[in-house]
Protein backbone atom coordinates (compact mmCIF):
# COMPACT_ATOMS: atom_id res chain seq x y z
CA UNK A 1 0.00 0.00 0.00
CA UNK A 2 1.26 3.50 -0.75
CA UNK A 3 -0.09 6.98 -0.29
CA UNK A 4 -0.21 9.77 -2.81
CA UNK A 5 0.76 13.26 -1.73
CA UNK A 6 -1.47 16.15 -2.82
CA UNK A 7 1.24 17.28 -5.17
CA UNK A 8 1.43 13.84 -6.82
CA UNK A 9 -2.31 13.95 -7.48
CA UNK A 10 -1.88 17.35 -9.09
CA UNK A 11 0.90 16.11 -11.31
CA UNK A 12 -1.15 13.10 -12.38
CA UNK A 13 -4.25 15.23 -13.05
CA UNK A 14 -2.22 17.75 -15.01
CA UNK A 15 -1.02 14.91 -17.21
CA UNK A 16 -4.53 13.53 -17.60
CA UNK A 17 -5.94 16.99 -18.30
CA UNK A 18 -3.68 17.34 -21.28
CA UNK A 19 -5.67 14.63 -23.03
CA UNK A 20 -8.95 14.95 -21.17
CA UNK A 21 -11.28 17.68 -22.36
CA UNK A 22 -13.27 17.97 -19.10
CA UNK A 23 -10.46 18.58 -16.62
CA UNK A 24 -8.74 21.93 -16.26
CA UNK A 25 -5.77 22.57 -14.01
CA UNK A 26 -5.16 26.24 -13.33
CA UNK A 27 -2.60 27.10 -10.69
CA UNK A 28 -3.71 25.43 -7.48
CA UNK A 29 -7.26 24.65 -8.57
CA UNK A 30 -8.49 21.65 -10.48
CA UNK A 31 -11.90 22.02 -12.07
CA UNK A 32 -14.16 20.43 -14.58
CA UNK A 33 -15.27 22.38 -17.63
CA UNK A 34 -19.02 23.15 -17.90
CA UNK A 35 -21.18 20.43 -19.40
CA UNK A 36 -21.75 21.01 -23.08
CA UNK A 37 -23.61 19.36 -25.93
CA UNK A 38 -23.17 19.74 -29.66
CA UNK A 39 -25.77 18.47 -32.13
CA UNK A 40 -25.60 18.21 -35.89
CA UNK A 41 -29.13 18.56 -37.24
CA UNK A 42 -29.36 17.51 -40.88
CA UNK A 43 -33.03 16.64 -41.29
CA UNK A 44 -35.80 18.96 -42.42
CA UNK A 45 -39.05 17.06 -42.08
CA UNK A 46 -41.71 17.90 -39.50
CA UNK A 47 -41.03 14.73 -37.48
CA UNK A 48 -37.23 14.91 -37.59
CA UNK A 49 -37.18 18.58 -36.67
CA UNK A 50 -38.25 17.57 -33.15
CA UNK A 51 -35.52 15.35 -31.60
CA UNK A 52 -32.65 17.86 -31.82
CA UNK A 53 -34.79 20.74 -30.50
CA UNK A 54 -36.24 18.68 -27.65
CA UNK A 55 -32.76 17.59 -26.59
CA UNK A 56 -31.30 21.07 -26.96
CA UNK A 57 -33.97 22.81 -24.86
CA UNK A 58 -33.82 20.08 -22.21
CA UNK A 59 -30.01 20.19 -22.08
CA UNK A 60 -30.17 23.97 -21.63
CA UNK A 61 -32.59 23.45 -18.72
CA UNK A 62 -30.02 21.06 -17.22
CA UNK A 63 -27.35 23.78 -17.48
CA UNK A 64 -25.51 22.44 -20.50
CA UNK A 65 -24.01 24.86 -22.98
CA UNK A 66 -25.61 23.82 -26.24
CA UNK A 67 -24.52 24.40 -29.83
CA UNK A 68 -26.54 23.17 -32.78
CA UNK A 69 -25.18 22.87 -36.29
CA UNK A 70 -27.93 23.01 -38.86
CA UNK A 71 -26.82 21.62 -42.18
CA UNK A 72 -28.40 20.43 -45.42
CA UNK A 73 -32.16 19.88 -45.00
CA UNK A 74 -31.86 20.88 -41.35
CA UNK A 75 -31.74 24.51 -42.51
CA UNK A 76 -35.48 24.29 -43.25
CA UNK A 77 -36.00 24.27 -39.47
CA UNK A 78 -34.34 27.69 -39.19
CA UNK A 79 -36.56 29.40 -41.76
CA UNK A 80 -38.61 32.38 -40.62
CA UNK A 81 -41.56 30.99 -42.55
CA UNK A 82 -41.67 27.37 -41.51
CA UNK A 83 -43.18 24.92 -43.94
CA UNK A 84 -42.15 21.57 -42.53
CA UNK A 85 -43.82 18.53 -43.99
CA UNK A 86 -43.59 14.83 -43.76
CA UNK A 87 -44.29 12.04 -46.16
CA UNK A 88 -45.73 8.60 -45.55
CA UNK A 89 -43.78 7.47 -48.61
CA UNK A 90 -40.74 5.44 -47.68
CA UNK A 91 -41.72 5.58 -44.03
CA UNK A 92 -43.48 2.30 -43.26
CA UNK A 93 -43.23 2.96 -39.50
CA UNK A 94 -45.48 6.02 -39.67
CA UNK A 95 -48.88 5.20 -38.17
CA UNK A 96 -51.66 6.01 -40.65
CA UNK A 97 -55.40 5.93 -39.94
CA UNK A 98 -55.86 3.49 -42.77
CA UNK A 99 -53.19 1.29 -44.21
CA UNK A 100 -52.45 2.34 -47.80
CA UNK A 101 -50.48 0.53 -50.46
CA UNK A 102 -47.16 2.20 -51.28
CA UNK A 103 -48.32 3.23 -54.75
CA UNK A 104 -51.24 5.15 -53.26
CA UNK A 105 -48.92 6.92 -50.83
CA UNK A 106 -47.25 8.47 -53.88
CA UNK A 107 -50.49 10.12 -55.04
CA UNK A 108 -50.76 13.92 -54.98
CA UNK A 109 -52.15 15.21 -51.69
CA UNK A 110 -50.89 12.34 -49.58
CA UNK A 111 -47.99 14.36 -48.22
CA UNK A 112 -50.34 17.19 -47.25
CA UNK A 113 -52.66 14.71 -45.59
CA UNK A 114 -49.88 13.07 -43.58
CA UNK A 115 -48.57 16.50 -42.54
CA UNK A 116 -51.99 17.72 -41.44
CA UNK A 117 -52.55 14.51 -39.52
CA UNK A 118 -49.24 14.84 -37.69
CA UNK A 119 -49.85 18.51 -36.83
CA UNK A 120 -53.24 17.65 -35.37
CA UNK A 121 -51.76 14.84 -33.33
CA UNK A 122 -48.91 16.98 -31.99
CA UNK A 123 -51.37 19.69 -30.95
CA UNK A 124 -53.82 17.29 -29.31
CA UNK A 125 -51.05 15.63 -27.28
CA UNK A 126 -49.70 18.92 -25.95
CA UNK A 127 -46.40 18.67 -27.83
CA UNK A 128 -44.76 22.05 -28.35
CA UNK A 129 -44.63 23.44 -31.87
CA UNK A 130 -41.28 23.72 -33.64
CA UNK A 131 -41.58 27.52 -33.41
CA UNK A 132 -42.05 27.34 -29.65
CA UNK A 133 -39.10 24.99 -29.12
CA UNK A 134 -36.94 27.19 -31.33
CA UNK A 135 -37.86 30.29 -29.32
CA UNK A 136 -37.29 28.51 -26.02
CA UNK A 137 -33.89 27.34 -27.25
CA UNK A 138 -32.86 30.86 -28.28
CA UNK A 139 -34.13 32.26 -24.97
CA UNK A 140 -31.94 29.82 -23.07
CA UNK A 141 -28.83 30.81 -25.04
CA UNK A 142 -28.61 27.75 -27.26
CA UNK A 143 -26.22 28.61 -30.10
CA UNK A 144 -27.69 28.03 -33.54
CA UNK A 145 -25.11 27.71 -36.27
CA UNK A 146 -26.23 27.50 -39.89
CA UNK A 147 -23.92 25.76 -42.33
CA UNK A 148 -22.80 28.53 -44.71
CA UNK A 149 -21.98 26.03 -47.44
CA UNK A 150 -25.55 24.69 -47.45
CA UNK A 151 -26.96 28.23 -47.42
CA UNK A 152 -24.98 28.85 -50.63
CA UNK A 153 -25.76 25.44 -52.09
CA UNK A 154 -29.52 25.92 -51.82
CA UNK A 155 -29.39 29.63 -52.77
CA UNK A 156 -30.89 30.67 -49.47
CA UNK A 157 -30.71 34.24 -48.22
CA UNK A 158 -29.83 35.09 -44.63
CA UNK A 159 -33.05 37.07 -44.58
CA UNK A 160 -34.98 33.80 -45.00
CA UNK A 161 -33.61 32.46 -41.73
CA UNK A 162 -34.43 33.55 -38.19
CA UNK A 163 -32.37 36.25 -36.46
CA UNK A 164 -29.88 35.50 -33.71
CA UNK A 165 -28.09 32.67 -35.46
CA UNK A 166 -24.49 32.32 -36.60
CA UNK A 167 -23.14 31.26 -39.97
CA UNK A 168 -20.06 29.08 -40.11
CA UNK A 169 -18.44 26.01 -41.58
CA UNK A 170 -17.18 22.60 -40.52
CA UNK A 171 -14.17 24.07 -38.71
CA UNK A 172 -16.46 25.78 -36.20
CA UNK A 173 -18.17 22.49 -35.51
CA UNK A 174 -14.87 21.03 -34.32
CA UNK A 175 -14.17 24.04 -32.17
CA UNK A 176 -17.47 23.50 -30.33
CA UNK A 177 -17.37 19.70 -30.40
CA UNK A 178 -13.85 19.37 -29.03
CA UNK A 179 -14.34 19.07 -25.31
CA UNK A 180 -18.12 18.72 -25.56
CA UNK A 181 -19.47 16.18 -23.09
CA UNK A 182 -22.15 15.05 -25.54
CA UNK A 183 -22.05 15.05 -29.34
CA UNK A 184 -24.97 13.87 -31.44
CA UNK A 185 -25.74 13.54 -35.12
CA UNK A 186 -29.37 13.65 -36.19
Amino acid at each position, binding site marked *: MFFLKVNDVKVILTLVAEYHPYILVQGDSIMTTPKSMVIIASQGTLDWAYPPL*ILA*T*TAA*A*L*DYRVSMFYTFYGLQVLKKKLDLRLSPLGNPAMPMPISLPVLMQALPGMEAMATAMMRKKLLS*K*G*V*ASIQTLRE*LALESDVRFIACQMTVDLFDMARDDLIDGIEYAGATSFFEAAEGATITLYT
Partner: protein
Amino acid sequence: MPNQTLDTKGLNCPLPILRAKKSLQRMTSGQILAVEATDPGSAKDFASFCTQTGNSLLTASENGGVFFYKIRKN
Protein backbone atom coordinates in the same frame (compact mmCIF):
# COMPACT_ATOMS: atom_id res chain seq x y z
CA MET B 1 -46.91 26.00 1.59
CA PRO B 2 -45.19 26.39 -1.78
CA ASN B 3 -43.90 29.85 -2.76
CA GLN B 4 -45.02 29.32 -6.32
CA THR B 5 -47.23 26.89 -8.21
CA LEU B 6 -46.92 25.79 -11.82
CA ASP B 7 -49.63 24.09 -13.86
CA THR B 8 -48.24 22.02 -16.74
CA LYS B 9 -51.31 19.80 -17.15
CA GLY B 10 -51.85 18.82 -20.79
CA LEU B 11 -48.27 19.66 -21.79
CA ASN B 12 -45.91 17.01 -23.07
CA CYS B 13 -42.16 16.45 -22.87
CA PRO B 14 -40.05 18.58 -22.58
CA LEU B 15 -42.39 21.50 -21.76
CA PRO B 16 -43.10 20.66 -18.08
CA ILE B 17 -39.36 20.57 -17.32
CA LEU B 18 -38.66 23.74 -19.33
CA ARG B 19 -41.44 25.62 -17.54
CA ALA B 20 -40.23 24.38 -14.16
CA LYS B 21 -36.70 25.51 -14.95
CA LYS B 22 -38.01 28.97 -15.89
CA SER B 23 -40.03 29.25 -12.67
CA LEU B 24 -37.05 28.15 -10.56
CA GLN B 25 -34.83 30.76 -12.20
CA ARG B 26 -37.14 33.49 -10.92
CA MET B 27 -37.14 32.07 -7.37
CA THR B 28 -34.61 32.41 -4.57
CA SER B 29 -32.69 29.68 -2.80
CA GLY B 30 -34.79 27.73 -0.29
CA GLN B 31 -38.13 28.56 -1.93
CA ILE B 32 -40.50 25.79 -2.92
CA LEU B 33 -42.11 25.25 -6.32
CA ALA B 34 -45.20 23.05 -6.64
CA VAL B 35 -45.77 21.51 -10.07
CA GLU B 36 -48.80 19.76 -11.49
CA ALA B 37 -48.39 17.59 -14.60
CA THR B 38 -50.23 14.98 -16.62
CA ASP B 39 -47.23 13.68 -18.60
CA PRO B 40 -46.56 10.17 -17.21
CA GLY B 41 -42.91 10.52 -18.25
CA SER B 42 -42.57 13.46 -15.86
CA ALA B 43 -42.35 11.08 -12.88
CA LYS B 44 -38.86 9.96 -13.88
CA ASP B 45 -37.92 13.25 -15.49
CA PHE B 46 -38.54 15.52 -12.50
CA ALA B 47 -36.45 13.25 -10.26
CA SER B 48 -33.69 13.25 -12.86
CA PHE B 49 -33.96 17.01 -13.39
CA CYS B 50 -33.54 17.67 -9.67
CA THR B 51 -30.54 15.33 -9.40
CA GLN B 52 -28.83 16.97 -12.35
CA THR B 53 -29.51 20.57 -11.36
CA GLY B 54 -28.85 20.21 -7.63
CA ASN B 55 -32.41 21.04 -6.55
CA SER B 56 -34.35 18.87 -4.09
CA LEU B 57 -37.44 16.92 -5.03
CA LEU B 58 -39.29 16.99 -1.70
CA THR B 59 -42.39 15.05 -2.69
CA ALA B 60 -43.75 13.29 -5.77
CA SER B 61 -47.25 11.83 -5.90
CA GLU B 62 -50.02 10.94 -8.30
CA ASN B 63 -53.77 11.21 -8.06
CA GLY B 64 -56.16 10.29 -10.88
CA GLY B 65 -53.60 10.77 -13.64
CA VAL B 66 -52.28 14.07 -12.26
CA PHE B 67 -48.74 14.16 -10.92
CA PHE B 68 -47.71 16.52 -8.11
CA TYR B 69 -44.16 17.54 -7.40
CA LYS B 70 -42.62 19.80 -4.78
CA ILE B 71 -39.17 21.10 -5.58
CA ARG B 72 -36.95 23.12 -3.25
CA LYS B 73 -34.57 25.43 -5.03
CA ASN B 74 -31.04 25.01 -3.72
